């Protein structure tokens, strides 16, 4: 059975519709990420699962129990849903110690003193904060507050934990570290999580499945690999990873002719209608050495930009400019002619 199930959820703020008919299910122990640009409705969706927003229609159920159901006029208040949440601002209570913060959910549930102590210490151990248990929460650094928020969210052994952009306020290095720790924690604890982020790299790295949202609707649901390798439409191709979008039209069962006349072989993740006008090619999947059977385009290197982990070339072709990212070896010079090659499997036909 699914742990969480959302059906046709609609959430409005006054006249604006923040979430417009969202449906998805999260399996037991699954880690799902809602990914999208700011204002796409991902946080609103998450908050409605927690019971902090009231949808106008649709339903939300957890473990088969209806938490919200517009037609049955049912709305279980946040405190009775039994889910847990890590807030973007951490929401660590400044007037309590670290221990008291983490113990809150346990005290609400009227656990005994000994139980509370054990559970809090276990949670603090998981985030390596046990030595700071007695410190006032107002004296913690950003990274430490983030750990306390995490410990507090898992201390009362919830089955569902919701994450609202928990890493967005950390600096890049700390964020990368916390990502590794979060993934580790998800594996160790028997929890189901829904995670919200606008950082596509983070979404791909820590999820079992990614749900890409835009302007209140779901654009695509899939594993990180599916989302990356087979973006369904232009928005997903653009928003997740970096891709070249080539314009043209379908000229055969597996032929797409780009501007400038070259025909490319493609794959289509959906049933092609023949009216499609764009294919996407990931910048990382383009080689500068020709391979047999690949799509090939000729051009000139217009700009070379050294990024360290990779080198980015802008290549001027007949069909427009293409961005190519290669490992930082065998550098090409600016102005040099180049033959670009990429497999038909990586030439993805986008939905019209």
């Amino acid at each position, binding site marked *: 059975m699914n742990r969480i199930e959302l059906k046709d959820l609609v959430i409005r703020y006054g006249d604006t519709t923040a979430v417009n008919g969202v449906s998805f299910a999260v399996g037991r122990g699954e880690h799902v990420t809602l990914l999208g640009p700011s204002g796409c409705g991902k946080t609103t969706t998450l908050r409605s699962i927690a019971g902090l927003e009231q949808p106008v229609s649709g339903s939300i159920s957890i473990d088969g129990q209806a938490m919200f159901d517009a037609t*049955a006029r049912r709305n279980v208040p946040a405190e009775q849903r039994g889910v847990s949440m890590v807030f973007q601002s951490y929401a660590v209570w400044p007037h309590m110690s670290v221990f008291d913060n983490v113990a809150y959910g346990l005290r609400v549930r009227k656990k005994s003193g000994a139980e509370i102590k054990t559970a809090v210490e276990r949670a603090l151990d998981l985030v390596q904060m046990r030595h700071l248990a007695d410190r006032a929460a107002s004296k913690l650094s950003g990274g430490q507050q983030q750990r306390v928020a995490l410990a507090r969210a898992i201390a009362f052994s919830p089955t569902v934990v919701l994450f609202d952009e928990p890493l967005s306020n950390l600096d890049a290095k700390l964020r990368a570290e916390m990502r590794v720790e979060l993934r580790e924690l998800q594996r160790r604890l028997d929890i189901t999580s829904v995670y919200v982020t606008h950082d596509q790299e983070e979404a791909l790295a820590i999820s079992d499945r990614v749900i890409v949202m835009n302007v209140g609707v779901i654009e695509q649901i899939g594993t990180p690999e599916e989302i990356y390798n087979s973006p369904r439409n232009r928005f997903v191709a653009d928003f997740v990873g970096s891709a070249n979008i080539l314009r043209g039209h379908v000229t055969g069962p597996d032929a797409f002719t780009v501007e400038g006349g070259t025909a490319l072989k493609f794959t289509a993740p959906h049933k092609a209608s023949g009216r499609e006008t764009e294919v996407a090619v990931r910048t990382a999947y383009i080689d500068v050495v020709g391979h047999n059977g690949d799509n090939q385009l000729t051009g000139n290197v217009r700009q070379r930009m050294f990024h360290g982990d990779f080198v980015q070339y802008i290549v001027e072709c007949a069909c427009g400019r293409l961005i190519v990212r290669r490992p930082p070896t065998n550098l090409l010079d600016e102005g040099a002619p180049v033959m670009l090659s990429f497999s038909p499997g990586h030439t993805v036909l986008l939905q019209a």
Partner: protein
Amino acid sequence: MGSHRRSAPLNKRNVWQPLITAAVLLAVSFLVLVPLVFLVEESLNTGDALTFPPEEFGLGNYIAMFNEDLDVLTNTVSIAIMATVMAIAIGFTLAWILTRTNVRGRALLERLMELPYYMTPLVGALAWSVLAAPKSGFFNQIWHYFGGPGDLLNVYSLVGIAWIMALFEGTVAFVMIAASMKSMDPALEESARVMGAGKLRTALTVTLPLVMPGVLGATLFVFAEMLGSFAAALVIGIPARIYVITTAIWDSTLSYPPDYGRAAAMGLALFVVMFGMLTFYRRMVSRGSFATITGKAFRPRPMNMGGWVWLLLGVCCLYIFLAVVLPIGALILTSLQRFATVILSQAQWTLGNYQMALGLGPVRTALGNSLLLGFGVATVGVLVMALIVWIIYRSTMRGRGAVEYLVMFPQAVPRMVFGLALLWAWLNIPIPIYGTLWLLALAYFTVMLPLGVRTLAGVVLQIDKSLEECARVCGASWGYQMRTVTLPLLKPGILAAWLLIFMACVRELGVSVFLMGPNAKVIAPSIISAFSSSGTELTAAMALIQTGSVVVALIILFRLTRGMTQPE
């Protein structure tokens, strides 16, 4: 669709919230708007001023204002202009010194700048009459002692009244100008320097134009405040027969029979002018013509003033001396003597004035009443205002915008005009609380609404909503969340609001003069009547006792706010 009503309602609070909001909206509009409606009606009453409802309507009261009271209007405007010019000059100088230069002890000095405001214009006016009254004023005593002819200073003049108003009511100019100087991105000046402009050129071409809108805004605001200023004009102006519009209003309610119609017309005219100016000011601010105000506080890099630092420090100290040390010193000196004199060899020392002030039945009751009202209004008021703040900033109820507008409305009405409106309203509303402390309490609560709501809102807005939400998600009920999270976080703000309201009640004058009854006296108007009937010595003792109780509250407040702003 509506027939499916089997399980729990969608949201239980949905039933209560509109009810409470409607009740608050009704109560607040009754308190705030009804008096003004009465005032408008009375201002149009051209028949017998004391009949209600009026039998004849007309614009006679308004026309009379221009026919008979033209000198009052010119006095009002000229005093307001002088006071504004002085207040802005003082405010600009001090703001510049304390935000843009490297004078030492700026944090402490900035705190001290607030003191004149807390001293109240009433106490300031009393003190300056002791200092600079013709003949008996301390300055003039010394002048005569050394054989000077005539009077050196005379505070019983247009300039004198303006001086006192600027000193004790002009603090807001400093606060506003300092804020606009603080919110200026130092990079704007630095880029001018980098482009090769000198200090002076930078100041003239970049700093001044950027600060100018802030200064203009402050000027407009202060001028509007000065038009409605009451205390100094009452204490100094009436003995000197210099009437401004506020004292003219006061005077026409004292004549026999009281001319409430005329008072109402003048009050409304004053209100309309001030309201217009303040609205214009808000427009100006919200239009974003203040390029410097980005909402972000910058740390301006102070300019190194070299040897000038001492002169600038001296200027700050001079202001503190004139507005705090000298007035308080003069009052203390006066209160300890039988006949006030600054020539100490002639002084007859006594504690009799304090004994009299505390022993005299009416004075003691007045002080007791003021403290009682302060405690009561602050305690009940803070609870009600917390509820209002919660409705405005935390609920999603329709009508919360109207609640916010209404509670802030008394701010736009000159205090003593509001007092007049309340007087006329409650004389005619068939609830017999006129002349009792109950009416005073109700009136205090109404006029303190903006102060209390603003203070509490400042704290509530600082508390991130997710702190509360997190408690709910952790499983806490609404009550448990309030008890463990919301209230503990609000506590310092609630205490601060309580103290501010308490202080404001103890020093309240504008509403009190109209609503005080023979059996419900309060301290500030009693000080004024003592000043006109008994000697300055007793009055000084009373003023110091009142100031003392405000100072105690103030010290507690500073302690509290310091704890709030510093990380623990």
